[in-house]
């Protein structure tokens, strides 16, 4: 009896967790597992109606995806590099802008509340509406960007294309940063409220200027928040589908061919779900490795700092 009671007591937490576990499995894990299973099958339009009958392809889909000498693999690798560069730049600018704005708005002045609210607008707008507006701004002949750069400021000799060719990378970066930096701003602003005022006062007494305070107090205090913020920003940017899709449509220019749209194009748009799944699994693995590596490096650094 005693043993049973102990078992019951020990089992109770699991029992209480069960509903959440079931829902979590249904919502998160099952689609992932199905995706992984799909990546080993030849799932095309011929087997959609009865996809249990789709033939197993073993690693065939993966071989197509990583065969760098064939067009599919080469295009995937190109898209991967574009996405890496894009993500690093976008996260960097988002963080820089967000932190700078948060630090400046920490000072008390008239209109601060208004400014803070305005800064959050891009984050609050529906993605489609915001990005399609940018798409029109970037139009070569009738867009506002060229009107300002070419017609008003005469900075360019000819009207450049922003949504075609190499410039499309810049356009994509601008829109992505514009859309995401308010999140960095919001998080850093919240973190700043938690830094004790005494630290700054003490530092001021010791003769530390603005920059020194920023370097010695603000940034170190933000460290734990930044660790999470940069990771989240990276994962979002790396996986971003909406921005490139709305900006460029089904076929992005090579210079701005992000992985998410690339995978969409090689699976959904062409009814080749097996290959698409294989590419998605590879993407997942890469992000897992990056995340694990990042957490390992950053938390080790913190331990030393704390110790």
């Amino acid at each position, binding site marked *: 009896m005693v043993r049973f009671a102990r078992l019951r007591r020990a089992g109770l937490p699991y029992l209480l967790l069960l509903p959440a576990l079931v829902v979590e499995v249904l919502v998160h894990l099952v689609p992932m597992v199905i995706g992984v299973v799909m990546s080993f099958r030849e799932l095309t*339009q011929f087997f959609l109606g009865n996809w249990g009958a789709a033939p197993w392809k073993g690693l065939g889909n993966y071989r197509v995806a990583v065969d760098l000498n064939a067009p599919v693999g080469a295009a995937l690798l190109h898209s991967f590099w574009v996405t890496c560069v894009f993500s690093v730049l976008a996260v960097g600018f988002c963080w820089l802008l967000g932190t700078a704005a948060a630090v400046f708005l920490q000072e008390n002045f008239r209109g601060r509340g208004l400014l803070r609210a305005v800064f959050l607008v891009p984050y609050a707008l529906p993605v489609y509406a915001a990005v399609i507006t940018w798409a029109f701004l970037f139009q070569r002949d009738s867009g506002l960007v060229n009107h300002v750069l070419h017609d008003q400021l005469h900075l360019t000799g000819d009207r450049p294309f922003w949504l075609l060719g190499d410039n499309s990378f810049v356009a994509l970066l601008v829109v992505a940063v514009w859309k995401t930096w308010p999140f960095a701003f919001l998080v850093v602003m919240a973190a700043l409220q938690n830094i004790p005022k005494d630290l700054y006062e003490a530092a001021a007494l010791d003769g530390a200027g603005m920059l020194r305070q920023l370097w010695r107090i603000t940034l170190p205090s933000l460290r734990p928040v930044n660790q999470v913020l940069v990771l989240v920003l990276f994962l979002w940017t790396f996986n971003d589908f909406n921005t490139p899709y709305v900006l460029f449509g089904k076929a992005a220019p090579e210079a701005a061919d992000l992985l998410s749209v690339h995978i969409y194009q090689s699976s959904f748009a062409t009814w080749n779900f097996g290959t698409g799944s294989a590419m998605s699994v590879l993407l997942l693995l890469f992000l897992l490795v990056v995340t694990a590596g990042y957490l390992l490096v950053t938390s080790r650094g913190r331990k030393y700092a704390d110790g």
Partner: protein
Amino acid sequence: MRILRVAPVSALVAVLAAAVSGCGGGSSPGGGGSNDSPTTLTYWASNQGPNVEADKKVLGPELKKFERQTGIKVKLEVIPWPDLLNRILAATTSGQGPDVLNIGNTWSASLQATGALLPWDEKNFAAIGGRDRFAAPALAATGAAGKDPAAVPLYSLTYALYYNKRMFQDAGISKPPATWGELVAAGKKVSKDGKWGLGAEGGQLANNIHQAFVLGKQHGADFFDAAGKPAFTSDGAVAAVKQYVDFMAKDRIIAPGNAEYGQNQSLRDFATGRTAMVLWQAAATTFAADGMKPSDWGVVPVPVPSGRPGAGRQTNSMLAGINVAVFRNTHNLNGARKFVKFLTSDAEQRLLNKTYGAIPPVKAAQRDPAFDRQDTRVLRRTLTRSAAPLPQIPDEAQFETSVGTAIKDLFADAAAGHPVTTASVRARLARAAQQMAK
């Protein structure tokens, strides 16, 4: 304690297994539908009017009429275009779908390959009055050749050449072009002072395909050989794509900015007098919405080499349109057939096509003044005489994506001032063909 640690893990595995197998059912192969629920039908209609609500207003009274005739209640769902293929694919994989549905006619062969749609054999066609009631080109866009159609034509559309009468007059052009030579000549006369001859949607993959396909026919080239293998780099196909891109690159009658158009900006340019011509399907309502009066524009058939549209090399339009299909797993097979018969009846065809600005694929329904206006007359004649369906192959979507993207990239080259040569066109198309190969 060991057992306790194992318990949650095994529970997780059990739930996973149950969920995976539960979702993995799909439809039973060869399931032929049933008549379990003879008094109701679910109908997925594509969005044909300005918005979903407008479609409900149009279709609602007609469904009531059908209910009065047959006692079958139709549950209508109008599905916006961005969702429609998604929803159909979801229904296909789960086996849980509507009884009757609309599909874009270019999807016919792909969806046919999934086996989710009821094949229209002689018996099924007999139930709706026979094949002969439909225009042949429309019927050709209902599935792969040599197989029973996967759907029945419902609304049809073709391309025409719209031109701005005033701009033609100002440039001294007396007669709208009937050949490509005349079109280029007219375009060159118009293209100056910020005005341009022809509009294009360089970023719209489907539109690129429609134009290249027709020009391909005129060069005697098909983009697929008889075995269904890609033949993108044949001399005819290369010449066709080059001819289309050359309107911008060599003839300079398309504004370079059109290379990035993808949201029908070319129609707005036409309506506001910036371009003199545009190749489009039933554009009348869009022009009106942009403030252009019907008397300001004229419409003629799309040019062909001989100046006289017909079959084969004188083809001048892809056959666009909507087909209606019956889901194979329907629970009301007889009712579904009755409903398709109703939708393709002469009276409904007249009414629905008139409302939606399309041309009835049912021949008898074409005799109506509504299909004899300046624009609909051209579209109707093209439909019966000189339109051809896009390749009816399961890989059609891949074709649209790969070759459509190749043309988009070529337009981008042309717009940036890079030369577009036979070799560069062939190289792009060769890459597109490699993406198709599996």
